[in-house]
C-alpha cells in the first residue's frame, strides 16, 4: 500500500521470571508512515494479574531516528500497564472499529500507566547468595500474605483509593521479587489526600477488622487491619511537603511520635505475586531512605523505632488527644 514500516520487538518479559528462559522476540510497536501521516500500532500483551502490558519503544542502533517525530508519540516512552478494557464495536467514518466500552477510563489511565519490571536478574543473584526460605511456615506465610494483599487491593480498588507497596513488602519486591518470609505483615502506602473515611468500614466488611488506628488525618495517620492467622495489613498515609514526603508513626505505650522522611516519588505499575500493583518509580531512593544502603543484606530483626535511617523523633501526642490518636482494638 506504499507504507514504510518500522517494527520494534524485544524479549518477552513474561519469560523473565525467576527462571531464565528465552524465546523468540515479541512485537511491541509498529510505526508505519506514508508521506506526512503515520500510524502507530501499539501491541498489548496479556499478563498474569489481569492486565494488558505494552513495551518500551526503543530504537535499535541501525534504525532511523528521524523516521517519524518519535517524541510526539503518545505511547512508548515507557512500558505501560492498563486494566483490561472490554471492547465495543462502533462505526467511525464508515469504518467498523473496536474501542473500549469505557473510553474515558482508558484515556485517564494513559498518563498514569508507566510500568517497571521486577528486577529478576538481581533477585536471582540475591536468592543464590541468601538461599530462599522454603520451610512450611515460610510458604504458609507467603500464601496468606498474598491472599491478604489481593483482598486489600480489591477493597481499595472498589473505593477508588490508589495505593502502593511500602516498607517490607516493597523491599521484598525490589530485592527478591517475592514476599519476604519473615516480614510478618503486608505494608501499603496511600497519599493522605486519597484518604476516605469509608476505608475502615470497607475493610471490616471484607473480613479485615481494624486492629489499631494511630494519629489523625491531619497528622501521622496510620491504620492496621487484622488478616487471617496473624498477618497484619499496615497502611501508612504519606504527607507531602515542598521538597519531601513523610509518613508518621506512633508508639502506643508512650505516645511518642515519629516521622519517616522520603524523597518525593511518583508511582509506577509493576507485577508482584500475579497482581498489577503500584510501587514508587524511584524505588531505590525510597528503599534506601527506609533501609539504608545495606538493604541488600537480609535483617530478620527490624525495629521500626530505631532501625530505619530516615526515622526522626517528632514529638509526643498531648495526653488529651490520646483517645483519638491511639486507638487499639
Amino acid at each position, binding site marked *: 500500500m506504499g507504507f514504510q514500516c518500522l517494527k520494534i520487538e524485544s524479549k518477552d518479559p513474561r519469560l523473565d521470571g525467576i527462571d531464565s*528462559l528465552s524465546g523468540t522476540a515479541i512485537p511491541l510497536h509498529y510505526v508505519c508512515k506514508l508521506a506526512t501521516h503515520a500510524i502507530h500500532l501499539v501491541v498489548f500483551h496479556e499478563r498474569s494479574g489481569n492486565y494488558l502490558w505494552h513495551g518500551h519503544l*526503543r530504537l535499535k542502533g541501525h534504525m532511523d531516528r528521524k523516521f517519524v517525530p518519535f517524541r510526539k508519540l503518545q505511547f512508548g516512552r515507557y512500558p505501560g500497564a492498563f486494566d483490561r478494557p472490554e471492547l465495543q464495536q462502533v462505526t467511525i467514518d464508515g469504518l467498523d472499529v473496536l474501542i473500549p466500552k469505557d473510553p474515558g477510563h482508558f484515556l485517564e489511565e494513559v498518563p498514569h500507566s508507566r510500568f517497571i519490571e521486577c528486577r529478576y536478574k538481581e533477585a536471582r543473584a540475591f536468592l543464590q547468595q541468601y538461599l530462599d526460605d522454603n520451610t512450611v511456615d515460610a510458604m504458609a506465610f507467603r500464601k496468606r500474605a498474598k491472599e491478604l494483599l489481593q483482598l486489600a487491593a480489591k477493597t481499595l480498588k472498589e473505593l477508588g483509593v490508589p495505593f502502593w507497596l511500602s516498607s517490607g513488602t516493597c523491599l521484598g519486591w525490589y530485592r527478591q521479587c517475592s514476599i519476604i518470609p519473615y516480614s510478618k505483615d503486608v505494608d501499603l502506602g496511600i497519599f493522605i489526600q486519597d484518604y476516605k473515611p469509608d476505608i475502615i468500614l470497607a475493610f471490616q466488611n471484607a473480613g479485615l477488622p481494624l486492629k489499631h488506628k494511630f494519629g489523625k488525618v491531619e497528622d501521622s495517620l496510620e491504620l492496621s487491619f487484622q488478616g487471617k492467622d496473624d498477618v497484619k495489613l499496615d497502611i501508612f498515609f504519606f504527607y507531602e511537603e515542598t521538597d519531601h514526603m513523610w509518613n508518621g508513626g506512633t508508639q502506643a505505650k508512650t505516645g511518642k511520635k515519629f516521622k519517616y522522611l522520603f524523597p518525593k516519588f511518583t508511582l509506577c505499575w509493576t507485577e508482584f505475586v500475579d497482581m498489577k500493583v503500584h510501587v514508587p518509580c524511584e524505588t531505590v531512593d525510597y528503599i534506601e531512605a527506609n533501609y539504608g544502603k545495606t538493604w541488600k543484606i537480609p535483617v530478620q530483626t527490624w525495629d521500626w523505632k530505631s532501625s530505619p535511617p530516615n526515622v526522626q523523633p517528632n514529638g509526643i501526642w498531648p495526653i488529651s488527644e490520646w483517645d483519638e490518636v491511639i486507638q487499639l482494638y
Partner: protein
Amino acid sequence: MEGTKEAKDSDGKAQEIWTGAVLFLLVTVIVNIKLILDTRRAINEANEDPEPEQDYDEALGRLESPRRRGSSPRRVLDVEVYSSRSKVYVAVDGTTVLEDEAREQGRGIHVIVLNQATGHVMAKRVFDTYSPHEDEAMVLFLNMVAPGRVLICTVKDEGSFHLKDTAKALLRSLGSQAGPALGWRDTWAFVGRKGGPVLGEKHSKSPALSSWGDPVLLKTDVPLSSAEEAECHWADTELNRRRRHFCSKVEGYGSVCSCKDPTPIEFSPDPLPDNKVLNVPVAVIAGNRPNYLYRMLRSLLSAQGVSPQMITVFIDGYYEEPMDVVALFGLRGIQHTPISIKNARVSQHYKASLTATFNLFPEAKFAVVLEEDLDIAVDFFSFLSQSIHLLEEDDSLYCISAWNDQGYEHTAEDPALLYRVETMPGLGWVLRKSLYKEELEPKWPTPEKLWDWDMWMRMPEQRQGRECIIPDVSRSYHFGIVGLNMNGYFHEAYFKKHKFNTVPGVQLRNVDSLKKEAYEVEIHRLLSEAEVLDHSKDPCEDSFLPDTEGHTYVVFIRMEKDDDFTTWTQLAKCLHIWDLDVRGNHQGLWRLFRKKNHFLVVGVPASPYSVKKPPSVTPIFLEPPPKEEGAPGAAEQT
C-alpha cells in the same frame, strides 16, 4: 654582554622547551580525539540488549560449523578422524566437532553427517552397537541420510558385539571394507559419501579378547560440492522455505527432506466440533532428543482439534537441533537455562515451563503437559474436550491423564471407558492452574533436591487424597527408549506392549459417572453384576477366566491394610502389567480386561468394596517368591 647572551641562550632553550611542549600537547589532543571517536563508533554499533544466550549459540555454532578463513571458498575439507578404546574425536578444518574421552560413556559407533557443500555438521549420533538393537537404530538413521552427504564413522571402545548382518550390509553398501568385518574391540575410522564413494578408512584389529585395537588416526581431504547439488528444488512456498532452512542444517529426518515427494510438514486434522480445549495451552517439555521431538510433534499436530498456536515447546538447554525441529513445524519454542543436575534438572525445567505457560496464557485455567517421547492419539483432544469439565467441577480430582498404567495390549479393551484412580500417571495430562499456582508452585522442590518431579507430585502431601481420570485405552504411547530413567530393557518390559488408541472420534461413555459420588454408584452396580470366579484356581492362568467375551468378573484378593499390596503385586507380575509400584487402584479396587472381559480385583478386607464378597469365598493370597531371586524391577534407572 654576558647577561644578555645567557638570557638569549636561556630564551632559546625556553623556546625549544615551549615548542616541544606544544607539540606534545598537540599529539595528546589528537590521540584523545581519536579515542573519543572510536568509542562513540563502538557505542553506536553495539546493540541495546546484550543477549548472552546468543553468544552461547554462536559459540556452539562456531564449534560445530567450521568457518573457513580467507576470502575464497575452499573446495576441500580437511577431515581428521580418531578411533580408540577410550577416546574418539573428529575435526573438520581444524575445528573439533566431536571429542569424547570421558570414561563410562560414548561406547559404540559415532556417526557424523556433514553437509557436502558447506562442511556444516548436520547430525551427530552415537550408536552403542555393543548393546542390542542399537544397530537397528543406526540402520534406520543411515537409511534416512540424503545421498551425497559426507558420512564419518568412528568406534569408541567396542562397536561390534551387536552389529548384526543388516547393519553390516549397509556399511558394505557404503563402500566400507572394515565396517562389515568389524570385530571385538576393533578400532575403525571411516569417511565416505552416502551413496559412495569411500574417501578414507582405517582399521586396527584387536590382537586378543582382553585387549583393544590400536588407536587409528585417519586424515582425509573431502572435496566439497556446489550448493545446488546439496539442495533440493522444491516449489517456493512458506512451508518449503521452512523445510529448506531445516534440511540444509539438519540430517537424520528422512523423507521430510527428500527431493521428490517430501513428507508434509503441515497437517490438516479434522476440526473438533464444540472443542472445549481449543484455548488450553499445551506445554511440550523437551530436552535434547530432537528425533523424538520430531516424531512427537508430528503426531500432536495430526490430532483432531489441535490448536498449533497454543503449543509451546520448552527445551531444557540451548540446543540447536530441537529448536530447528520446532521451527520446521512453525511452532513456538522456548529455551531454558538448565539448573542443577539429573532428576533435579528435569524437575526445575518442569517448574520453569509450567510457570511460563501460565504467564504466557494468563487467562488459561488449565494446561496440557506433554513430553517429547510420546505419540499422541488422534482423539487426544477429543478425549480431553469430553472430560475437562470434570476437572472444573469436581474438586476431588487431581488431574486428567491420557495414560493407563495397567493398559497393556492384553488388559485394555474399551476406548470409551474411563476410570478414577488414586495415582498420577503423567505421560500426557491436564494440570489445573489453581492447583499449580496455589499448591504446587510455591513448594516445588528446590534445585538441590534430587527428586523426580512426578514422584513428588504423587506423594500424599501433594496429592492429598485426590484422584485422576484415566481412559482404559491410553491416548498416548511412550516410545522413548533413551532417557534419564529409560533403557532398552525397561522399555521392552513395560512400555512396548502398551495399548494405544488409534480410533478417531471416540464418544466417551457416561462421562458424568466419573464424578465422586456417581462413580461409587457405578462401581456398586458393576460389582453387583459381576460374576464371582472360582477362587480355588490360579489367578495367573488364562483359564482362571472362562472363554467368554464382554462379561464382567470379580476376584477377591487378600489386602490386610490400606498399604498391603503383597498379593496385588504378585498378581500384577504374573499378568505382566505394571508391578514396580502400585498403580491403578481406587479404594482397593483394580479394573482391567482379560480375554476381553471386564476383570475387577477387590482387596479384602481393606477395600470398602469387600462388603460385596460372598461369605463362602476366601480371598486369594499370593506369596512373593523367596528374596534370593533378586528384587523385581531390576530394569530400573539408566
